[in-house]
């Protein structure tokens, strides 16, 4: 049972991380630095708890906010570049954050940051955050900013000409993505009790991207599904645990050939709606 809870908690945190990648992704910004924002949230909230005795929830919110503010400033140079160059910029950012944390004695440097108060209800808190994200993303789809996100993501130049301020839209998306990653990091830190810079290396950012591409990029259920399934499967199939990245790689290649939009697409959601309305319709008649 304990084992199940621990796997489910990590899955919850990874769902949060996948969503933190997905939000800027909606506006066409691909970030390889989400693990860096996660680290900022983790260390930020840990400092709040350990050094200042701030309670759990506010500590995590502060950690997330710091990550969001950093996201804003990383987002400014990110506005001018696209594609592979943005990948490199965010990759560099993530690594800089990690190297900085390795060298700051105040937070334990390379030896790590021990003694973070353990949160018994990490499972609950991580899924409260997932729930909030579900509400947020489902409302976003039907809101002014959400439409702007989609417009900027699908044709930035056309969006600008018809009146969308792409600078502000992209900055908001990038820094909110940083905030969400920071929250994930805070929950992670208080679940692990001990954090070290190595936990936030770039391979984790890559994993968050894999979750999203595998799960589906058209609708927010995709990355949620991808993060959950790809965290759970290796846990239950112990054999493949060590071959995780190889498995992810192979899965991605297969997906790109068979279903480039990811497992969950707009058609999946429409199909589910049809099926459920049919079942409900029968039940009523």
């Amino acid at each position, binding site marked *: 049972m304990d084992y199940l809870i621990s796997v489910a908690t990590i899955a919850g945190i990874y769902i949060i991380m996948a969503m933190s990648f997905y939000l800027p992704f909606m506006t066409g910004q691909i970030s390889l630095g989400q693990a860096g924002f996660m680290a900022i949230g983790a260390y930020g909230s840990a400092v709040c708890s350990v050094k200042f005795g701030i309670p759990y929830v506010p500590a995590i919110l502060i950690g997330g906010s710091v990550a969001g503010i950093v996201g804003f400033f990383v987002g400014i140079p990110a506005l001018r570049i696209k594609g592979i160059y943005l990948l490199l910029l965010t990759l560099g950012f993530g690594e800089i954050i990690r190297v900085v944390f390795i060298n700051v004695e105040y937070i334990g440097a390379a030896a790590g940051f021990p003694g973070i108060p353990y949160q018994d209800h990490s499972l609950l808190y991580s899924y409260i955050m997932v729930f909030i994200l579900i509400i947020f993303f489902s409302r976003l789809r039907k809101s002014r900013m959400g439409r702007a996100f989609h417009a900027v993501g699908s044709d930035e130049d056309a969006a600008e000409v*018809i009146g969308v301020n792409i600078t502000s839209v992209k900055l908001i998306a990038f820094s909110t993505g940083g905030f969400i990653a920071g929250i994930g990091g805070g929950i992670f830190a208080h679940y692990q009790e001990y954090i070290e810079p190595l936990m936030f290396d770039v391979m984790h950012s890559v994993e968050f991207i894999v979750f999203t591409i595998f799960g589906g990029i058209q609708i927010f259920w995709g990355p949620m599904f991808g993060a959950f399934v790809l965290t759970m499967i290796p846990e239950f199939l112990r054999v493949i645990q060590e071959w995780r990245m190889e498995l992810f790689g192979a899965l991605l290649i297969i997906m790109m050939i068979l279903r480039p939009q990811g497992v969950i697409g707009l058609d999946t959601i429409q199909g589910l709606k049809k099926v459920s309305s049919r079942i409900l319709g029968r039940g009523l008649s």
Partner: protein
Amino acid sequence: MILNIRNVAKQFNGFHALSNIGVDVAEGKIHAIIGPNGAGKTTLFNLISGVYDLTEGEIRFKDVVINQLKPHLRAKLGIGRTFQIVRLFGLMSVLENVMIGTHCKTRAGLLKTFLRFSRKELTEEKATRENATRWLEFVGLAHKADQTASNLPHAEQRLVEIARALALDPELILLDEPAAGMNLNETLKLDALISKINQMGKAILLIEHNMELVMEISHVITVLNFGMKIAEGVSSEIQNNPKVIEAYLGRKK
């Protein structure tokens, strides 16, 4: 005059795409820009809507110099446009595409959308939706509101683009080859639609290759060739202008 283009030039790495262009668009008129391929018509549109910075000259809209403004601010001032190659946001519904059109005139931010504290945001969303529905009815596509934009036939996608530009309620609308790829019947409907937009008092700047359409509905026609203005006037003047005939058909032997 609602739009004044003064001595405008645009160069791409030394290539003179446009030189010394002066065009005035009057309030409530249909003004056509014609010319052979590569004459610089779409470049001129891109300068007006802010896709490119101009190399020389000045563009004024309602007596405000706009050539330093970002594209979204020009839209906010009241310049709407459509594109030569349809640029709808493919995965969104037809209605959502038109709703985007009012983005710069509405306010709801990310946090307020999420929390939905105030009635104001909900009213704004409702007003945006109603406005978009009205413009879809105007172009005759209200029955397709919920379809995914990229699933529509080409001609209807062009109409959605026009509705999206109109949603902003612009005073000047730039139509870049709206009849391209349309059959005769669709072109006739478009013809009526453009006149209807004009009757609402909106000025229209139109790039079009369909000469019948241009001659019939334009109040003023400007002819470009090799990046220069070679003629301007009403349709009868343009049709008999030897320079224009030469540009289109070549020199008489």
